[in-house]
């Protein structure tokens, strides 16, 4: 029984040989079946076997094999070509920096799947913001049939090959130790712009992980700070851009500007892919934003409260100026009074409790409390009921204040509308559950938390801004939950604006001016992220307090608006 089960030949190339292996075990099997007159297989099934092979045939080297293995997904052409470039040209080490809304997660999923199918990756780690862990795990599993697991317990690090984990948890012990002990075939880092500084713990952590292939995902353009870029590239290819000192000499004029933009661009393109919405090959049809301003007329009682509070605030701004806590309370109060009586009420009570010895202050606050109690009809709330009736579809209402949120939910219930709350304080599980309820059962979601990622509401296209944040970034984040990739309809944004109040000024001058800018998904969010709003609210507040004349106030605010418009165009 001395069978030759395989036979080896080879092809000679100039420097190497390519071995050819012939599987010959079948010959014996055939002889046996023939001499024993069976058992033989069914001809039809024989054909089915061949058809399966024909279907699964990989016809060219550059082809993405994984495309045949995606149960519920048809990727866009730009996503497929990105995956191919990363695999074929960049050998699995790349920065994916698509503009928001083009589907970086999908691109990452394609690359992961392809490496899995080719047997080039087995142990895979995906590090993302904590709020996105479940979402990533779900997407990889449902869209790509990738057996990814969300890291929860310590023993999971060694047991599972494909893990999605929170970056913050992972970089601390005991988790860190487990990660350092592994050799990962593929590491994916979402929100990689957090790695832009070599001196941070994040950078050092990622750099120390043993990895073969790396994908860094980020939405920021990275063209504004070359050092940031250098730091990211160094993670991918230590030594690719040379030592920092020589890189600096060769490529940089100063921190922000390169010597030769084209040359640098060329270097960058070797490791980074950035698709832009304006590219010709992007086939995605982005829906529009339609903004409606709903002016609200305050009742006499509401007007009395507004004026009372505004005067109070102006009066005490200078008294409290040294005391940050109290100034903040004033700012909040001024904004809350445009949102709901309930919100203002609670702040007033708190102020009262903290007012210390001052009798006069206590009395003033009490007076305001009395005025607040008188307010029965809340105009905004009534307007919103009418609005929702008219919309007759799923709606998200955003408000800054929890008191307003609770008030709205009971008001909605009174009027027969089903609703769910959504707050930053909810844990992941509850957030997911509220989202599911909203999607499947309830008509309205009343949300205070919008900044958190992980809330995807593309199935809804109606937003009501019950009150307006003064920070345009916050507004953009709200809208971005709905106006994003996956949204199929034009998005309607209803801004409630109380007439002859500061809210009206803010709304018209700042938000609508900035909104007019680009009507495309998400680009504003990325740009706004880069602008510094930390002093913004304080500056606006000071303007309000200092300027009695309404016209002059408008002028001043307009200038602020102009300034930001300019900053946006430089940064886009």
């Amino acid at each position: 029984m001395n069978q030759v089960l395989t036979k080896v030949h080879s092809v000679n190339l100039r420097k190497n040989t390519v071995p050819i292996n012939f599987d010959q075990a079948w010959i014996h099997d055939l002889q046996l079946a023939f001499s024993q007159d069976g058992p033989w297989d069914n001809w039809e099934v024989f054909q089915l076997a061949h058809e399966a092979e024909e279907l699964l045939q990989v016809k060219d080297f550059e082809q993405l094999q994984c495309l045949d293995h995606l149960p519920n997904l048809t990727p866009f052409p730009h996503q497929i070509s990105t995956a191919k470039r990363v695999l074929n040209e960049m050998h699995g080490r790349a920065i994916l920096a698509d503009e928001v809304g083009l589907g970086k997660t999908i691109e990452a999923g394609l690359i992961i799947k392809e490496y899995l199918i080719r047997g080039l990756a087995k142990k895979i780690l995906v590090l993302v913001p904590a709020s996105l862990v479940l979402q990533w795990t779900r997407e990889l599993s449902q869209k790509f049939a990738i057996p990814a697991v969300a890291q929860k317990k310590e023993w999971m690090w060694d047991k599972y090959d494909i893990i999605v984990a929170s970056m913050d948890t992972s970089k601390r012990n005991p988790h860190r130790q487990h990660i350092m002990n592994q050799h990962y075939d593929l590491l994916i880092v979402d929100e990689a712009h957090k790695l832009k500084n070599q001196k941070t713990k994040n950078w050092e952590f990622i750099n120390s992980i043993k990895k073969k292939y790396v994908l860094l995902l980020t939405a920021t353009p990275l063209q504004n700070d070359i050092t940031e870029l250098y730091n990211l590239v160094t993670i991918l290819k230590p030594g690719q851009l040379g030592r920092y000192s020589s890189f600096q000499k060769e490529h940089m004029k100063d921190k922000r500007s390169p010597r030769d933009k084209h040359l640098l661009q060329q270097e960058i393109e070797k490791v980074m892919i950035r698709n832009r919405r304006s590219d010709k090959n992007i086939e995605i049809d982005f829906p529009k934003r339609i903004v409606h301003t709903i002016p609200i007329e305050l009742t006499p009682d509401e007007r009395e409260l507004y004026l009372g509070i505004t005067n109070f605030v102006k009066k005490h701004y200078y008294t409290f100026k040294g005391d940050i806590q109290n100034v903040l309370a004033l700012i909040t109060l001024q904004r809350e009074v445009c949102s709901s009586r309930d919100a203002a009420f609670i702040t007033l009570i708190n102020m009262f409790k903290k007012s210390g010895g001052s009798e006069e202050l206590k009395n003033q606050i009490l007076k305001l409390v009395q005025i607040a109690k008188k307010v029965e009809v809340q105009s905004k709330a009534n307007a919103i009921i009418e609005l929702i009736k008219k919309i007759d579809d799923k709606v998200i209402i955003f408000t800054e204040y929890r008191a307003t949120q609770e008030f709205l939910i009971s008001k909605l219930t009174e009027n027969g509308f089903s609703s769910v709350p959504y707050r930053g304080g909810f844990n992941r599980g509850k957030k997911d559950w509220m989202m599911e309820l909203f999607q499947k059962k309830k008509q309205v979601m009343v949300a205070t938390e919008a900044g958190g990622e992980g809330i995807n509401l593309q199935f809804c296209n109606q937003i009501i801004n019950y009150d307006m944040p003064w920070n345009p970034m916050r507004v953009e984040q709200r809208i971005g939950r709905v106006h994003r990739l996956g949204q199929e309809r034009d998005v309607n944004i209803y801004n409630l604006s109380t007439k002859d109040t500061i809210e009206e000024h803010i709304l018209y001058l700042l938000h609508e001016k900035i909104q007019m800018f680009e009507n495309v998904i998400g680009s504003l969010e990325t740009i706004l992220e880069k602008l510094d709003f930390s002093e913004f609210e304080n500056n606006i507040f000071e303007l309000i307090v200092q300027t009695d004349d309404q016209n002059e106030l408008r002028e001043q605010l307009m200038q602020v608006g102009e300034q930001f418009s300019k900053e946006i165009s430089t940064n886009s």
Partner: protein
Amino acid sequence: MDHVWVRNYIERYLEYHNCLFLERGPGHTQVKLSVEVDKDLTNRPYYWTFVERTGTEPETLTMNFIFDQEKVDSNLRGEVVSFGSERLKQFFNAAKSHGKAVRLYQQSTSRNLGYNSRKIPHATKLNPWIGVNYKVELLCDKKKDLLFSLGMNLSNGQLQTAFFPKLKKINLTPVLPANTVTSPPFITFREAALQLEEYLLNEIHNQDFTWAIAAYERLDQEIQQVEAYYVNQQKQSENKSAVFQKQGVVDVEKDKRVAEISWLYSPRIEVKPINYGVFYLDETVLKNVEYLN
């Protein structure tokens, strides 16, 4: 388009394995599995051992396969099968294992027969052929497949390419038809296989090998990176003078990594049969195959 293909494939598989079709809707099929298919698909090895041991009547599962979710009632509970799903892979694997080796005879038609002087039909004479569907895999960190379907006449050594598509046009039966004789093979299976392999070798040599040259270059780059990494690690641990890894340990690990990379990236070619069989055909059928059907 895809669901049409998937549905057609799965339904044929189930039919050829004698499953019972209970319901067929525009987007789904409900079927009671046969014993064989149940064993293959449903992963109930304990149940089947139990059946064997106790001699009970086996109860096979009924499954609802959904091919086009949009055409299915939302109340219907079933399993969606599409490209990429595990279930479809299962069907493919089952087909490959149950469709490996066949022996078939050309079905006689009255056209073939001639009559002798006593008006008794001549027996049809069939020659044995071996047919093999080959998959040639060009492998490195990427891959490409070449499919070949080859046949060889075991009476005279005649080689036929694109064998299988031709066979599909012939009426074939697993049972020796009446009034038919077969000639014994003149060439052994092994000798024929060697000839087919020679053919393939030739085809392979005619291929473009830039893919392999590029793969070797990538392999070199990868190894260089690994080497650089370990040199770097060594430097770092020297600098830290804390835990100093013994040179031997580092080398072992490095060698392991280099071996892994070499295995993954090194170009190689694998020639495997997908399936194969013995086919008894008359002398002219392959020439005339264009005119059949």
